């Protein structure tokens, strides 16, 4: 009973590690996926960044080229407008009657054209075609300006020479057309370049935007995936943690419960140990007490035995004294009373004779009691001589001793074959004699009939002596074996009441039992047992 909770606890404990190991595998895989997702997202973002950077760089480059083209266009325009402004200033100078203001405007126009050409040359240094066109343009512009200068110079020196002025104007117009044509070509070239470069720049913008968008989308998708995985893993972990927590709590509760049980068990065990120790101590004390008692008892018994030996010796002495010394005064009483009656019979009245009768009767009874007491004492104290004895012979001996009584009462004695037993023969004769004597003595009207038999019962012989006498009430069946215990008055049946007491003593000394069964007016059966020895036979 007591081991069950432990087993249950163990059984409960074992699955937990295997379960967590399984979970660990899943967790590892998820972690790898998450890490890979992150790495991939980072890589992708880096790629997108680099691509965007490159794309932007390219865009900036393209934008710069566009701006550069605009600068070239401005320079071309400046050149044209410078030349045109110089022409306009000459005309103004002519028309405004050589107002010097227009000379200043003329110088501005010339310088503007020069700056424009210089700028174009510088700006288109990488463009061989434009440089070549510029090489062609520059002399034309110089010629044009030189014509204008000549015109102005002529105006200052000879303002009236109109013909030359007109010739110069028409010459200048032709040059103007050539210059404008050249500039137009260059402008066209730059316009074409501008268009190309603007388109490329536009493409770069689209490309950069596309790269950014795709990179963003991919990163977003990856991050979302990783987030989902992380979320799932967090949920799984949370669940696992909850389960683990619950398992922990259960385990803790079980541990506490078990601890309480163990503590309780420990307490009861200690109590038990205490009890046992106390019991052991008590036992030890009792044992010691018993040993002391045994020693005391042994000493007592030894003393008692010594007392008994002495008592027996005294009893033997008493028996001797009784048999000789007590009987002598009794004989005197009896004898002289009888002599008194005999010699003074005529002088004794009725009362005197009655008294003497009491005297003689009392003295005789006393004598008989002493003799019976001696006989009883002898049966108890005399050493027994155990010999293998044929009970049939014993019976014959007893019948011999009782032959007078048998004859007087016309008793019929019937005996079955009796066994051979190991006994004191003299005492067994006395036993049979006393029992048979009673069977004949306590008779009814009809002649006494006595049956004697014996049967083997286990390791003992049961003897039975049954008569057809007066019987007795069952209440007296035990006390008849007590010494001097009688059932009848002396006038009914003689005797002192010693016979059955002697029978009991003899049977006791042979290790047997004696008892009687009886029915008043029908008869009595006496039973006694004697030990059966292997060497005895029927």
């Amino acid at each position, binding site marked *: 009973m007591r081991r069950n909770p432990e087993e249950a606890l163990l059984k409960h404990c074992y699955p937990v590690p295997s379960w967590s190991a399984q979970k660990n595998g899943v967790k590892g895989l998820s972690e790898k996926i998450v890490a890979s997702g992150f790495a991939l997202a980072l890589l992708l973002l880096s790629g997108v960044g680099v691509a965007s950077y490159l794309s932007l760089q390219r865009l900036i480059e393209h934008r710069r080229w566009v701006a550069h083209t605009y600068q070239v266009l401005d320079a071309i325009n400046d050149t044209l407008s410078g030349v045109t402004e110089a022409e306009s200033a000459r005309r103004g100078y002519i028309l405004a009657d050589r107002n010097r203001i227009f000379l200043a405007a003329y110088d501005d126009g010339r310088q503007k054209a020069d700056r424009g050409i210089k700028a174009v040359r510088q700006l288109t240094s990488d463009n061989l075609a434009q440089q070549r066109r510029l090489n062609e343009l520059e002399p034309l512009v110089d010629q044009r300006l030189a014509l204008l200068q000549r015109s102005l110079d002529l105006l200052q020196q000879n303002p009236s020479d109109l013909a030359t002025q007109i010739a110069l104007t028409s010459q200048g117009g032709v040059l103007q057309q050539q210059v404008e044509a050249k500039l137009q070509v260059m402008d066209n070239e730059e316009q074409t370049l501008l268009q190309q470069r603007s388109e490329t720049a536009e493409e770069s913008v689209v490309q950069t935007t596309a790269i950014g968008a795709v990179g963003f989308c991919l990163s977003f998708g990856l991050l979302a995936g990783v987030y989902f995985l992380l979320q799932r893993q967090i949920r799984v972990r949370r669940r696992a943690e909850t389960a683990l927590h619950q398992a922990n709590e259960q385990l803790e509760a079980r541990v506490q419960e078990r601890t309480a049980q163990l503590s309780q068990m420990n307490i009861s065990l200690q109590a038990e140990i205490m009890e046992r120790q106390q019991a052991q101590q008590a036992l030890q004390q009792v044992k010691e007490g018993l040993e002391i008692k045994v020693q005391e008892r042994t000493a007592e018994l030894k003393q008692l035995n010594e007392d008994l030996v002495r008592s027996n010796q005294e009893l033997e002495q008493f028996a001797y004294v009784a048999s000789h010394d007590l009987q002598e005064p009794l004989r005197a009483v009896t004898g002289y009373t009888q002599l008194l009656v005999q010699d003074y019979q005529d002088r004794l009245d009725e009362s005197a004779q*009655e008294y003497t009768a*009491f005297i003689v*009767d*009392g003295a005789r009874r006393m004598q008989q009691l002493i003799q019976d007491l001696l006989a009883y004492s002898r049966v108890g104290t005399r050493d027994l001589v155990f010999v293998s004895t044929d009970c049939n012979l014993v019976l014959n001996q007893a019948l011999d001793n009782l032959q007078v009584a048998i004859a007087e009462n016309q008793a019929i004695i019937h005996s079955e074959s009796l066994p051979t037993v190991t006994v004191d023969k003299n005492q067994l004769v006395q036993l049979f004699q006393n029992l048979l004597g009673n069977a004949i003595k306590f008779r009814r009207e009809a002649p006494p009939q006595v049956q004697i038999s014996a049967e083997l019962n286990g390791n003992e012989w049961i003897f039975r002596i049954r008569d057809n006498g007066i019987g007795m009430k069952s*209440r*007296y069946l035990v006390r008849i074996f007590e010494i001097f215990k*009688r*059932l*009848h*008055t*002396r*006038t009914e049946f003689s005797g002192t*009441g010693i016979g059955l007491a002697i029978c009991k003593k003899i049977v006791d000394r042979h290790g047997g039992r004696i008892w009687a069964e009886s029915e008043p007016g029908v008869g009595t059966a006496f039973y006694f047992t004697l030990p059966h020895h292997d060497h005895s036979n029927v």
Partner: protein
Amino acid sequence: MTIQMSNTIEILLVEDSPSDANLTIKSFSQAKIANNLHWVKDGETAMDYLLQQNEYTNAFRPDLILLDLNLPGMDGREVLAEVKANSDLKRIPIVILTTSANEEDVLRTYNLNANCYVTKPFDVQQFIQVIQLISNFWLAAVRLPSE
């Protein structure tokens, strides 16, 4: 058995020894109060007498019982116990008159509600005196229940 008038004190003597019975009978015959003593020799006869059965169907109910203890068969202790257990007989005073001076006998008989216990003196004169004392006391001094 002698049938007397009803004012005569009826006594039952239960005694197995003829010599003792003889002395007791003699002593009571000399008592001042008229009495009628009946002698039985054993316990069973005594019970027959008291219960008026068998040969004693016409017996008088005794006013006093003198009871010896050691009797053949049913002894005096058993007679005492039976009488004191019998609702009709238990008021009859019982005087234990015995040779035994045994303390256990004294205790046992008083426990069985004996009315007094007297040990028979060994000396004949003393014996006669004790019997006369008993007769004077129980017949003259004591008031006995009337039936």
